[in-house]
């Protein structure tokens, strides 16, 4: 509550929160496509490959303005992407290997440059190293303006080319037969992904930025079956993760923003993986248990029906022990109680069980269904 109050009062905190939320929304949106196109690793490669671009941009211009550094990061990220595409196109190197190689080479080169820059006898370079793990506290209003306007370009592209991006993600070859230049659309979408990544680097850092691409989308996929809803939900999750991570790191001095943001995103993913309806682990486990219980109950019901049939359908009580003997070790007693609850069977005398009229009807239905299936 106190934090919320500060959010409205404290100018710095408000700037940080706005910037982090904006970058989360953008990376969540573009991340949805990356995840659906199975390009999660590409996000990782782009963000790592951006590091040398950032340092080189500083070395060439002597400026640490966000726009300059983001531009450098973007160029490096695009070059890395093009190298990956070319290598997989002309050689037999599989895409994941190409991504791994490009990621480590670019990142290694970036670290070398960073070490070199830090030894320069000039204090202006101070702060470049925060691009490794991110530092939301360094966000200024003009940074947020850069993040928001570049992010708006990416969001606008998704909105305008909604149909084209969907076609690319679902069935690229079919799109080509319709006459769309799928390579151009691919480059466009990938460029927007690069944009979404580089605007987050100052806040989240090159090492962990890919989590902001993958995590919100992976979580959103659990909750919905429509592309539109998935993209919106992914943007929302990204925004929430960015916002809460930035606030956590700003209120606890010394905590880098990247890890805090990633922890927030991870929490969303875990909750989604466990509890989302239909796809969530917990939901599916419950569903499985419910089905198993039903199958056991049906089996006991059919046993009772078979026994009744052997005794000429008379209302003859059968001891539970007989039923247990027919199906050892599956909790027959519990199933009998459940059947009684449904009104399919009732107790008769001491440990005896009888099918009710409903029970006999239900058993006949089950047998009919089984006949239809076979």
């Amino acid at each position, binding site marked *: 509550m106190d934090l919320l109050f500060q959010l409205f009062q404290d100018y710095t905190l408000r700037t940080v929160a706005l910037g982090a939320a904006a970058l989360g929304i953008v990376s969540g949106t573009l991340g949805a496509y990356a995840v*659906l196109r199975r390009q999660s690793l590409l996000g990782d490669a782009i963000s790592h490959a951006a590091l040398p671009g950032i340092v080189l941009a500083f070395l060439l211009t002597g400026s640490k303005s966000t726009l300059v550094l983001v531009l450098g990061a973007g160029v490096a990220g695009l070059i890395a992407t093009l190298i990956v595409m070319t290598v997989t196109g002309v050689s037999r190197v599989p895409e994941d290997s190409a991504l791994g190689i490009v990621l480590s080479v670019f990142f290694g080169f970036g670290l070398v440059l960073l070490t070199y820059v830090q030894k320069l006898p000039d204090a202006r370079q101070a702060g470049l190293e925060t691009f490794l793990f991110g530092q939301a506290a360094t966000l200024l209003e003009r940074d947020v303006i850069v993040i928001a306007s570049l992010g708006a370009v990416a969001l606008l592209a998704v909105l*305008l*080319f*909604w*149909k*084209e991006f*969907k*076609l690319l*993600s*679902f*069935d690229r*070859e*079919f*799109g*080509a*037969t*319709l*006459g*769309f230049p799928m390579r151009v659309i691919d480059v466009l979408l990938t460029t927007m992904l690069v944009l979404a990544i580089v605007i987050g680097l100052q806040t989240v850092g090159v090492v962990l930025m890919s989590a902001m691409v993958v995590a919100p989308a992976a979580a959103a*996929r659990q909750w*919905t*079956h*429509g*592309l539109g*809803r*998935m993209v919106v939900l992914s943007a929302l999750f990204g925004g929430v993760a960015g916002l809460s991570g930035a606030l956590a790191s700003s209120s606890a001095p010394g905590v880098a923003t990247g890890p805090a943001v990633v922890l927030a995103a991870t929490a969303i993913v875990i909750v989604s993986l466990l509890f989302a309806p239909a796809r969530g682990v917990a939901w599916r486990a419950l569903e499985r248990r419910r089905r198993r219980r039903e199958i056991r109950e049906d089996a006991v019901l059919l046993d009772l029906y078979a026994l009744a049939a052997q005794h000429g359908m008379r209302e003859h009580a059968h001891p539970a022990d007989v039923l247990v003997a027919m199906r050892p070790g599956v909790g027959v007693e519990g199933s009998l109680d459940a059947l009684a609850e449904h009104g399919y069977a009732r107790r008769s005398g001491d440990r005896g069980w009888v099918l009710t009229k409903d029970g006999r009807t239900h058993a006949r239905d089950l047998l009919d269904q089984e006949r239809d299936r076979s």
Partner: protein
Amino acid sequence: MTDRLAIEVNDLTVAYREQPVLWDVDLEVPEGVLMAIVGPNGAGKTTMIKAILGLISPAAGQILVHGKPYRQQRRLVAYVPQRGTVDWDFPTSVLDVVMMGRYGALGWLRRPGRNERDAAMAALEMVGMEDLAHRQISQLSGGQQQRVFLARALVQDARVYLMDEPFQGVDARTERAIVGVLQELRAAGDTVVAVHHALQTVPEYFDWVTLLNVRRIAAGPVDEVFTEENLRLTYGGRVPFLSGNGGNGGDRGNGGESLGAVGAASDLAGERASHGNPAG
């Protein structure tokens, strides 16, 4: 059927990593016929379709659709890919996928609206899937997936339909639905070219056939060229259905599969060469 050609292919050669997948193939498909392309695995059947569609650039050759290069006639051609080529867990609905068939006519930026929706519903009705329009595509059976792809091609309102194994692993109901659609298309004067595996159904479903094994072995009306000798030339001597049990009875799905397997055995080298390449 008219005397005009729906598709004309001249000297088509496609190579994949120095391996010829199609070698100097000529093909003339008259307008208004239902044509099957048959041949063993690795014979280049899929490659042939993809080359006609411009998805693969050939090493040599010329392709005309209704007398003009394919690029000028794209609107006349609809494509039904193998259903295994997409991720069916993609978050979208049946209706949405079918509407994609209208994207080409819509062009850039414009969104599908009521017209596209109506066209998609009509196509779904043609394939018997109108009740499943709002179903998630992840919940479809294989046969339903195949019918969705067919409906997506139908909304393109094309004159030439290229289908890659439309009967592959589908249930009896889907097979009947597809055959019904093929006959409707023929009645409307449209042309269908389909890669087909179940040899015993070729005479029943198609009136024209191309036998392909890297080279064109034979092409023409089924009753003229679908002969035992041509099949032996295509499959390398082992064609089980001609000597085996009667063609028209029994379970066609299984029959088709076993034939495919024999085709593979008879052309192991070809199959190995084609593994993981577009000829598959």
